[in-house]
């Protein structure tokens, strides 16, 4: 279990993930060696799962992002597994979540433009198995995107 010092380190890391290690150590009130040791331990125990690089798809020419929400045909016991396996094979899918609620699954799907979106939707999304219902939310803008929690 992470102790108060670990939490302090994680809080500083969340607040400024780009900060150099020495800076982070100073803010958390630990030595750089201790910071390194603790981060390694947090990684090994799985508390710190990853420090990922965000990719700005729009800068690479992927202008369209859609949040697709699905309900599945639950009379088919393998519906979830088969849907997930098929969704993982769609290269334009960047996120997959499963839910308890009125929606069973959500995919984030990106496309270069609206014409490309239309072909992705027709050829790769409408062909996903066991879909009972779906709806689409087209992204206009991201106002906040953090992974912060109140540690």
């Amino acid at each position, binding site marked *: 279990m992470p102790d108060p010092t670990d939490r302090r380190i994680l809080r500083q*890391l969340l607040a400024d993930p780009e900060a150099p290690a020495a800076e982070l150590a100073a803010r958390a009130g630990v030595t750089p060696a201790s910071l390194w040791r603790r981060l390694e331990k947090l990684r090994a125990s799985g508390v710190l799962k990853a420090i990922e690089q965000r990719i700005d798809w729009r800068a*690479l020419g992927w202008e369209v992002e859609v949040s697709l929400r699905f309900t599945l045909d639950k009379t088919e016991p393998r519906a979830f597994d088969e849907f997930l396996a098929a969704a993982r094979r769609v290269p334009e899918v960047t996120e997959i979540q499963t839910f308890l*609620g009125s929606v069973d699954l959500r995919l984030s799907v990106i496309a270069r433009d609206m014409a490309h979106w239309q072909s992705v939707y027709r050829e790769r999304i409408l062909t996903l198995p066991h879909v009972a219902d779906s709806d689409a*939310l*087209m992204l206009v803008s991201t106002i906040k995107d953090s992974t912060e929690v109140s540690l």
Partner: protein
Amino acid sequence: MTQIDETDQAILRHLARDATLSAAAIGRSLGIAQPAIWRRIRRLTDAGVLAGRRVVLDNAALGFGVTVFLGIRLATKGRTSLEDFERAVTAIPEVQVVQHVLGQFDYRLRITARDISDFERILRRRIMTLPGVGQVEANVMLSEERRPGPLGQDKAG
């Protein structure tokens, strides 16, 4: 728009998994000299392709066992109501993600809470009291995976 080749894609695949990898480590993995990797990372950074780091924690291990996605429809629309709503919703610490969308809802939110009763408190005291909020739909997240997207898969081996 920035054009990228297969080597850039491979670099992005590495960094998307671990942003702390050094140019030397990526170079070793791809069999390319470190200065060449460094120059490419510099170019991708300048082009705005590398959009900052995302720290991914095991929220459950830290006492935040519940993640909920909300769809929110505003009851009143207009420029000021959007701005008021956005200002208020981004200030809520438990709200991690706010996206303005087109479709059945106007906004989608991602919320982390300690448990279901903590979520209920956030929903009642903070979300339902937001300016202009109308219909709200909540779905509790069970699992999540991020995909490399169109960067493609690593070659076998």
